[in-house]
């Protein structure tokens, strides 16, 4: 089976800052893969390389067998992308928002309305489809963005912090729809999140990224068991949490190094808009 994503020695620098520094990562087709790490770890830069937003040399990134440098359009046709920011257009209705993405993915006119309706139904937004997106709650906007990504039947869905700033009920709602869509379509999901409980609960495998590289990789249980063994815990001791694994990998001093001003501002703006 072809890997959904294969990064080989992926490196990307902004000036002197190496945001991604020799990333080797394979995401298997059909799995939900969580990319975790502190702000500034290189997650978003890695995602931008995979989505062709940032140029990479040939041979570093392949999406379902297509090289991200040589075959950009083919890669983009396979992708559904939801960025961290609330990117739905508030001046359009939910239906119009989804219809725009149906058009730019070449959905023919004869099936556009039906496909848009299915995408909206898949995220439970049928009743709100003809309201302006500016009147939606944060959770509804996230689901609308999911519908925008789903309308082109992507084989790889990439979600950058999809639940940031949402309340627990809205977070669960977003994840339920992601999980249900994945089960129904068999698509691969690559997600970044800061919420360790979400990664633990919904991801098949996670990669912990720090300073531009993957520092730990496996299923959430494997990573927690691994830390427990390194700490010499007995079989009856409770497993460490994924957050413990995160702290173990990233170490101390995160407050001083994680994320620049722009990262934090963007995160806060998104949280403020959904809250």
């Amino acid at each position: 089976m072809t890997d959904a994503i294969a990064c080989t020695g992926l490196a990307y620098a902004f000036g002197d800052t190496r945001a991604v520094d020799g990333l080797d990562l394979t995401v298997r087709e059909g799995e939900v893969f969580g990319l975790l790490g502190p702000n500034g770890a290189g997650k978003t830069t890695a995602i931008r390389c995979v989505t062709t937003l940032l140029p990479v040399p040939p041979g570093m990134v392949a999406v379902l067998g297509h090289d991200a440098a040589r075959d950009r359009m083919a890669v983009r046709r396979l992708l559904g992308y939801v960025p961290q920011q609330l990117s739905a257009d508030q001046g359009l209705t939910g239906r119009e928002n989804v219809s725009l993405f149906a058009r730019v993915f070449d959905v023919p006119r004869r099936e556009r309305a039906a496909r848009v309706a299915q995408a909206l139904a898949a995220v439970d937004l049928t009743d709100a489809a003809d309201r302006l997106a500016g009147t939606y709650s944060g959770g509804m906007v996230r689901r609308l963005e999911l519908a925008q990504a789903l309308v082109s039947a992507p084989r790889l869905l990439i979600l950058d912090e999809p639940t940031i700033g949402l309340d627990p009920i809205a977070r669960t709602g977003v994840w339920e729809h992601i999980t249900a869509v994945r089960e129904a379509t068999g698509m691969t999901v690559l997600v970044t999140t800061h919420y360790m409980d979400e990664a633990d609960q919904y991801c098949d495998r996670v990669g912990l990224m720090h300073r531009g590289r993957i520092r730990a990789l496996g299923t959430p249980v494997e990573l927690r068991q691994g830390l427990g063994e390194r700490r010499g815990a007995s079989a009856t001791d409770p497993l460490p949490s994924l957050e413990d694994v995160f702290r173990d990998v990233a170490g101390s001093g995160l407050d001083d190094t994680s994320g620049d001003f722009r990262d934090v501002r963007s995160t806060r703006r998104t949280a403020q808009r959904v809250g």
Partner: protein
Amino acid sequence: MSEAPAAPPSASADRAHAQGIDLLLRPPEPRAGWRLLPARVGALCAVELQKLRHDRTELYTRAVQPALWLLIFGQTFTRIRAIPTGGIPYIDYLAPGIIAQSAMFIAIFYGIQIIWERDAGVLNKLLVTPTPRSALITGKAFAAGVKSVVQAVVVIVIAAVLGVALTWNPLRLIGVAVIVVLGSAFFSCLSMTIAGIVLSRDRLMGFGQAITMPLFFASNALYPVAIMPGWLQAVSRFNPLTYEVDALRGLLLGTPAHLALDYGVLLVAAALGIAAASSLLGRLAR
């Protein structure tokens, strides 16, 4: 790191999926070759019209300034008779210039809009679709044109109410629409090109203010090129707004114009603008 735990599952996802998603399992057939560009342009123009349909506030507020130009400047200078207009009332002479000015002001805003779209994640999401950057910029340029044409209709109606003797020949009005679209395409691309260089909204607003009025005054929108000092005449010959106003005046008022040259210059300017803005779009994605 782990904040509030996720809530217990609800039934909404199951309910949603009970309704069928067969179409979402089949990727659409890619459009090939020449059909891709008009499809993208059509999609982005449709978005502008949908937004205008939902909220016409901008259309009304943007009509205030041209109305004031025609009402105050136009009527006053018609009485003064200080500017040679070739025998037509000054307000008539001014009206095509104000239409071009309104269209330019709308188009110049597109640079700020594309930076806002970058900050909001909209631009990245569009750049991850199978849309070449040149098609995205062309789409935005024509969307600016569509918005400007709607604005031009408003200004033409205001001018008609103020007694300006405009043509109502449908062919000439179609020609006006084409000129407005080409002019707006150029100015929106100029603005998006500057956005790709300066990368920040604050800097672009400074640039926008610095270039908008000089472009307006270094054109034949308010007065004929012949009465300008030599250096300003030279500048006006490189200013696409001059050719836009010349064509609008010829089409709307029937004054002597160089329509072939005007259309040619605006077409080349729009093409160069699209090429420049497309080449710099990648800087905004980083």
